[in-house]
């Protein structure tokens, strides 16, 4: 029997550190997408809260309790990270655990790095802690979250991990280079 060795999405690509910004891979134990069918939103949200302790989040928001997070990921869809909700009557539920590469970027200039890659308003009072956005990371679709003042979470399709690390490294190098000039 072959012994298979698990490879993480960003293995050999992260961590990266330039200037005051560091990017590290984040491993979620489980990622599950939950999409309530039309008219079932309230029922599914209650069932989800009963199953894993977090309800279905409002658009553009993250709800966290202990190690479980529910991230809004689009119209009528959220991702549950860190706990398997199991089957939820009235919703389409799919396992996404191996489909995404997740990383966290942290540091004083983390926002300046993201501003080179993400076309949304990242000002601290507009994209606040606990907010989530579906947007672009370079040319890739991503799930962006603000986890703390200078800390952001980024999820991209796992197949795009190499491109994401490449784009991120370029932006981090340029921001660090400007910082050195000051």
């Amino acid at each position, binding site marked *: 029997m072959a012994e298979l060795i698990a490879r993480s999405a960003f293995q050999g690509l992260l961590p990266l550190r330039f200037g005051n910004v560091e990017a590290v891979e984040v491993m979620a134990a489980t990622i599950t997408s939950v999409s309530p069918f039309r008219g079932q939103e309230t029922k599914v949200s209650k069932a989800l809260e009963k199953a894993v302790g977090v309800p279905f989040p409002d658009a553009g928001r993250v709800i966290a309790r202990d190690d479980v997070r529910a991230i809004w990921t689009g*119209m009528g869809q959220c991702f549950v990270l860190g706990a398997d909700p199991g089957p939820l009557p009235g919703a389409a539920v799919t396992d996404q655990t191996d489909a995404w590469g997740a990383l966290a970027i942290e540091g004083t200039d983390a926002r300046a790095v993201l501003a080179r890659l993400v076309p*949304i*308003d990242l000002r601290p009072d507009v994209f606040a802690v606990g907010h989530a*956005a*579906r*947007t*672009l990371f370079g040319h890739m679709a991503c799930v962006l979250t603000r986890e703390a003042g200078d800390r952001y979470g980024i999820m991209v399709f796992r197949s795009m991990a190499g491109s994401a690390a490449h784009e991120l490294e370029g932006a981090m190098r340029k921001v660090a280079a400007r910082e050195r000039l000051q």
Partner: protein
Amino acid sequence: MQIDCPFCGARDIREFTYLGHETYIHRPADEAWSDAWNDYLHNRENPAGMTRDLWFHGSGCGAWLVVTRNTVTHEITGVELAREASRHAG
């Protein structure tokens, strides 16, 4: 140019894809060929002024939107979810 998505707020044009006039959400009910089908498939106005188009927020929340805009000034005066626009139309 930005479109004010009902879910995501004002977002850059690069997150959206254009389909065409909102005619596409008013599909004729009858299965047989008719002038209504001909209009649905082929005939469009080309206004200098207000028009209503379908846009897809594919690099965002995945919503289909009906955007009311002015082809002369590029001003956007309204954005609504296509499924609600469709429901209101019957």
